[in-house]
């Protein structure tokens, strides 16, 4: 059973995020049809390419009212409204890259590959999409950064006894997560979970951050990505529980409280066991939804505010502009926070299942 103390926190968070997502998602969905709030006329803004880029690029796009480029399947509606939010937060087989001529971006179509037939699963289309590309990019950046930091740290330790500069910062971050977040939560002999949790952290962090740079996109704003990450966490949690507890792992699935009298015990077994089993799946589900909803909701808010700038087209635009800046900063924080929370909760779950006693 999950200790009561940790429940209200995660529960409250889950609820808050779920509510936020539920409130914000219809805006994105309806924006395609008739909702005028975040939508602008195609003559004004064809399509901003990213979040952070929007100021410069979108401003140019006003001066460049071509709107002639490909918008099919991206929400160009017949009534002259265009949806700028949905294409941004959803996946697609197009990639926007910086371009030196106005509108300063160029759309390239990603290649389409034949679906690969996986055993047990069937054919899966593994063609690269926008989010796949940004995931690769995030992985590449993480790899480059951490390998460089490790090398620099090693060199620093060998020469002056401590790393210097940015590498020291990365090392301090990794060390903090290791000694203050992962190890205390995972419990005894948690060292073997450190690389896993840290990989999770940096991978998610970079996917989050890539959505905040111009022309970028957030792979973690896609439920498939967060669900897979949560699934990985789920498997790690449960397998580590099975290894740590042996047959005692069944006690985390089936409620059999030896402190209760036998009649009550049997009743509680049938009442609590489904709850326990559902609880197993709730945790990764909450992880996936939390990350996905946070990233998606943040981007929707940001894009709605940016849309407002071009809707007002006057000095009033200053207000949404300032708000967009503030929300961007908040998003920067959220990018770190959500990566941290995912890592923290995964560690907590591993610790719980390894220490669970009934």
């Amino acid at each position, binding site marked *: 059973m999950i200790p*009561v103390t940790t*429940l*209200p926190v995660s*529960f409250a968070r889950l*609820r808050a995020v*779920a509510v936020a997502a539920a409130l914000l*998602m219809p805006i994105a*969905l*309806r924006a*395609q*049809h008739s909702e005028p709030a975040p939508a602008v006329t195609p003559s004004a803004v064809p399509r901003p390419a990213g979040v952070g880029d929007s100021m410069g690029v979108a401003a140019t796009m006003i001066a460049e009212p071509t709107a002639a480029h490909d918008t099919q*399947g991206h929400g160009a509606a017949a009534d002259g409204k265009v949806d700028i939010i*949905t294409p941004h*937060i*959803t996946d697609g087989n197009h990639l926007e890259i910086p371009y030196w001529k106005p509108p300063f971006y160029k759309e390239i179509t990603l290649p389409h590959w034949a679906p690969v037939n*996986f055993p047990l*699963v069937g054919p899966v*289309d593994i*063609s*690269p*999409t926008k989010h*796949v590309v940004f*995931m*690769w990019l995030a*992985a590449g950046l*993480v*790899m480059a950064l*951490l*390998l460089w*930091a*490790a090398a620099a*740290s*090693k060199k620093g330790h060998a020469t002056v006894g401590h790393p210097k500069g940015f590498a020291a910062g990365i090392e301090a971050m*990794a*060390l903090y997560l*290791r*000694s203050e977040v992962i190890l205390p939560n995972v419990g005894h002999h948690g*060292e073997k979970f*450190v*690389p896993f949790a840290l*990989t999770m952290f*940096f*991978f998610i962090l970079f996917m989050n951050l890539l959505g905040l740079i111009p022309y970028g996109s957030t*792979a973690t704003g896609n*439920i*498939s*990505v967060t669900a*897979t*990450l949560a699934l*990985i966490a789920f498997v790690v949690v449960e397998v580590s529980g099975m290894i740590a507890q042996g047959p005692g792992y069944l006690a985390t699935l089936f409620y059999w409280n030896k402190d209760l009298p036998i009649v009550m015990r049997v009743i509680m077994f049938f009442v*609590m066991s489904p*709850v*326990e089993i*559902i*609880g197993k799946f*709730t945790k990764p*589900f*909450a992880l996936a*939804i939390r990350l*996905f909803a946070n990233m998606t909701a943040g981007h929707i808010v940001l894009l709605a505010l940016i849309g407002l700038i071009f809707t007002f087209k006057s000095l009033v635009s200053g207000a949404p502009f300032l708000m967009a800046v503030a929300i961007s900063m908040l998003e920067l924080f959220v990018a770190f926070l959500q990566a941290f929370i995912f890592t923290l909760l995964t560690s907590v779950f591993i610790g719980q299942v390894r220490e669970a006693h009934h």
Partner: protein
Amino acid sequence: MRLLSVAARRALLVLPLVVAPAFASEPAEGGPVNLLEPKGGLMFWTLLVFIVLLFVLSRYAFKPLFAAVEAREKALEDAIAGANRDREEAQRLLSEQKAGLEHSRVEAQKIIADARSTAEKMKADLLEQTRQQQVEMLEGARRDIEGEKSKAIADLRREAVDLAIAGAGKVIQQNLDAAGNRKIVETFLASIDGAALRKR
């Protein structure tokens, strides 16, 4: 009960969210986009990229990054374990020492007690023996004295008889009535003997 209610509330909240993706259908072209629709390709790439990243990072980034810290932690742990071991060893030695000391003390006590009882016994024995000897010596002396006395008495008697006879010889030389005289003498001697005996 609170546990149950929290878990139940949680489960109830989660239920519609769990079911929701199941109802998600392929969006029609141009229709609303379903944000909760899982895409196999993306899931595949996420899994693959994560596994590769995990492998590369744990091998080439985290290992060297934490090598110094882990070495330090290990050294610290070893030092603590060593100190604990040493303390336990010292504790063990101390208790052993104490037990040994206690043992020797008891031993010494026992030896002293033994010696004391032995001495006591020996003293008693010796005393007894001395007393016995004393008694024996006394007895012997008494016996000797008795013997000597009776011998002396016999000697004296013989001497007295001899003297008396010698005296009597003289008397006989004077007075040839020996028989009558002898009787007188013996009567006399008997009176001496009885007086002497009574005197003693």
